[in-house]
């Protein structure tokens, strides 16, 4: 019993917070939004701090659930991201009618992701995946007055259901072929190539492809990102994608490790397609959220290169990149969410001349974009370099050259925004934004994070040591 509490403490804390929120919602006393928000942010902070205590290794529920320091750290990365998003959306939620519900849904998905990261069994994994996706669709609908928001939610739920279907079909094929569902048993049984195994694998891969929005499974991404509230968009693009990537690495390296040489080529093509299509579509975007949606598709292409490395360094670089990506993307979304909450403006044209009125916000957004583009001294440079380095370990320099040239394309559209902010004249620039200190704090953390995590090697080496320990 004691072991249960220690191993599952991160999940239990989240559950506890959900219950506290439920209690607040149902209590007869009317809580003001601001009080609720302060309380939640404090709770999330405590949750993050608690995540670092007593990292332990162990299995529960007959090998269905496993935790170790690496998984605990991955969950903490997600905790950090959630806290940052919560701080950033302060201005938006302050006037919203359903704050406790929003956080209940948010934390339910987070709980689902935690179980997903820890799952060692296909059923557990599927259950956790559903727990993490269905509340997300409800969250996408949280701009209650906007039609686009409901449209986004609807697209999200349909495409998620479809992806889950594919995944489930793949799992059932694998089960039919091997009679096993736990990761370790599957990994042992899948020794030779048989058509059924490969078919099952392809379906599972497609399911994952949907969730990480790799091309050609990306079509839902841009519409959902554009329609959903900014807080949900940033959650989708950073936290939810990060969690799936963590699991993806685990599944590939435990269940399908034998098929390494064949999924290498699948991921190779997926990655090239994802980078090129993501980049080319990002060039044409006018809406900042759509723009970041396509840019995040392109980023996934880079992450896939790290996974194709199939090495310790490759896996480390994926987790490291997700950490860096959280800082960079949340810095960008933080600025966008502030501007959108205060002025409602979301297109690149609106951002023209931003530097005149909001120099600090402009620098934050510019740094975030540089980090996404992989320009030093921001951490994005290190993240991308290590991903490419891991990919080069396979000796495929064509892939590295394609990726490097994609970095040039991506620089173009990131600089387009920078150019609009710094250089283009505008008669009606966005007025000077007066923000609460909480979103500012979140932005400051992001900026410090994206400067420090690269220049100081601590984060990378910590992740590396966790992988070695694993």
């Amino acid at each position: 019993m004691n072991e249960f509490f220690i191993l599952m403490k991160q999940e239990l804390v989240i559950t506890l917070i959900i219950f506290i929120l439920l209690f607040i919602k149902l209590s007869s006393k009317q809580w003001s939004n601001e009080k609720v928000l302060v309380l939640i942010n404090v709770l999330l902070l405590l949750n993050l701090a608690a995540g670092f205590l007593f990292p332990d290794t162990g299995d529960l529920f007959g090998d269905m659930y496993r935790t170790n320091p690496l998984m605990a750290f991955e969950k903490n990365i997600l905790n950090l991201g959630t806290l940052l998003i919560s701080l950033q959306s302060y201005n938006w939620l302050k006037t919203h009618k359903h704050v406790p519900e929003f956080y209940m849904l948010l934390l339910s998905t987070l709980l689902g992701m935690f179980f997903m990261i820890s799952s060692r069994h296909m059923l557990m994994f599927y259950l956790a995946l559903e727990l993490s996706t269905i509340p997300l669709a409800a969250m996408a609908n949280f701009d209650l007055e906007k039609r686009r928001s409901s449209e986004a939610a609807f697209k999200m739920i349909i495409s998620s259901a479809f992806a889950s279907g594919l995944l489930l079909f793949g799992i059932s094929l694998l089960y039919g072929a091997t009679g096993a569902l736990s990761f370790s048993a599957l990994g042992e049984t899948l020794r030779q190539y048989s058509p059924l195994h490969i078919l099952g694998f392809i379906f599972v891969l497609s399911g994952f492809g949907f969730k990480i929005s790799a091309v050609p499974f990306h079509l839902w991404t841009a519409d959902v990102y554009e329609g959903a509230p900014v807080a949900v968009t940033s959650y989708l693009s950073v936290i939810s994608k990060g969690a799936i990537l963590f699991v993806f690495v685990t599944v590939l390296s435990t269940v399908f490790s034998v098929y390494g040489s064949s999924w290498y080529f699948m991921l190779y093509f997926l990655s090239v397609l994802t980078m090129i299509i993501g980049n080319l579509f990002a060039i044409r975007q006018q809406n900042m959220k759509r723009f970041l949606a396509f840019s995040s598709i392109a980023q996934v292409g880079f992450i896939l290169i790290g996974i194709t490395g199939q090495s310790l360094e490759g896996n480390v670089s994926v987790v490291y990149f997700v950490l860096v990506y959280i800082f960079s993307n949340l810095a960008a979304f933080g600025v966008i969410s502030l501007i959108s909450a205060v002025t409602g403006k979301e297109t690149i044209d609106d951002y023209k001349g931003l530097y005149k009125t909001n120099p600090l916000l402009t620098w934050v957004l510019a740094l975030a974009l540089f980090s996404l583009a992989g320009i030093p001294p921001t951490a994005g440079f290190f993240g991308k370099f290590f991903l490419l380095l891991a990919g080069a370990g396979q000796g495929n320099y064509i892939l590295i050259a394609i990726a490097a040239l994609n970095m040039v394309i991506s620089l173009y559209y990131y600089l387009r925004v920078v150019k609009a902010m710094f250089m283009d004249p505008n008669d009606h620039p966005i007025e000077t934004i007066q923000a609460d200190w909480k979103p500012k704090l979140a932005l400051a953390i992001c900026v410090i994070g994206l400067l420090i995590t690269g220049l100081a090697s601590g984060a990378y080496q910590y992740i590396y040591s966790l992988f070695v320990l694993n």
Partner: protein
Amino acid sequence: MNLLILLIAPLVTALAILPVKGLKQVRAIALAGSLLQLGLTFATLMSFLSERSSGKTNEFLLEQNFAWYRDLNINFHLGVDGISIAMMLLTAFVVVAGVLVSWKMEKMSKEFFFLLIFLSMGAYGFFMALDLFTLFFFLEVAVIPKFLLIGIWGSGKKEYSAMKLALMLMAGSALVLVGLTGLYFYSDFHGTRTFDIVEISSRNIPLGVQQILFPFTFIGFGIFTALFPFHTWVPDGHSSAPTAASMFLAGISMKLGGYGCLRVATWLMPQAAQEYSTIIIVLASIGILYGAFATMMQTDLKYINAYSSVSHTSFVILGIAMLTKTAINGAVLQMISHGLMTALFFAVIGMIYERTHTREVAKLGGLLKVMPFISTVFVIAGLCSLGLPGFSGFVAEMTVFMGSWERIGLLYRIATIAGAASIVVTAVYILRATGKSIMGPVANQEFNGFSDAAWNEKLAAIVLVAGILIMGLAPFLLKDLINPGTEEIMQKIVSSIK
């Protein structure tokens, strides 16, 4: 002398600019910072010379090595040889002059000086780096400040030029990146993988790998140094940039490429350098002639200097590709000489433009009567550019020609003759531009009221002219400094042939 100081000093200067208010304070800090850099570079030179004379035979001295990403064996490794010290001196001179020239930068002065000083830090880091990752880091650090400097403070079609420059330089670094990752994985065959330049140079990379990686690396760095046909960012970028940024771009930034071609591509992959040398020589010769003839057609002073930069930096590539000791020495000398000369040219053009608000040769004329100091400096820069003995240009170009004459073979002869012939073309366009804009009657009555150079402009010009004259009159100073470095590179090339 700890080399880290040379990185910390610019960084502290740049950060110190941020909190202060007002142009006067900002430029005072920037000037103090750049003078400090100059002093520190000389201090580095002195301690380098004293270490060397005390009998240390290591190629690189004053080394600083810190583990950065230990698990990947990436180190923050700094160290200097004669070549890098020469490049650092060039950087220091150009930055001081650049700050002085931008003395009246009213528009967003804080950001301007911040970016300028930040750029200089990137250049120092690049020249001192002995680890390929560190080197690449500093190579890319410089891309964004250049973009912002041109895009915000530039003139003409500045956004277009800024974007073109940023993308082409990024493409260059992308190609370099492929080369570097390859070198990392093939440095592996005894012991661990490494990015350390000295370490890799002592291990022989297999020929088949060199053949793949060398083009990536050389072309990547070549884009930075205007290797034909990847030179197209140069004219637009240089002519749209504000004066100080043009000086930096042409004076230092293009040299990053030349230094990289020499230090990384040629030194680490000598066999491939041999194999590809004919192609590179052909490209460089085309670049020399094309640049020279294209300059003839230009009417804008900045475009004249930008296209002539293409021609002049192609000499650097030609010298490196010839792979003889004299030619490589010449290439390094040409980098320094061109850096000083072109920075001076852009500074003077900036001064003229500030007064007359035109850079069209046809609209200028008789400036000598109105602003004698500026005109004299213009003539000096011009004479240096066309290679008059006594100035640095002559020393450098002569050395390249002598070195390339050492290579026997029809192609090398043709390339050398083509290069030498381009000097005639250079004389034509320089003398024509000088004659039309400086000499003759005053073209516009408005010009009569213009003042000559202010003290800061005079000082900027004097700093650069002093550099040019020292190099032109006492070339042995610089040659003795860089010679051991090139000898080391030559040794590697010669031993790889056997």
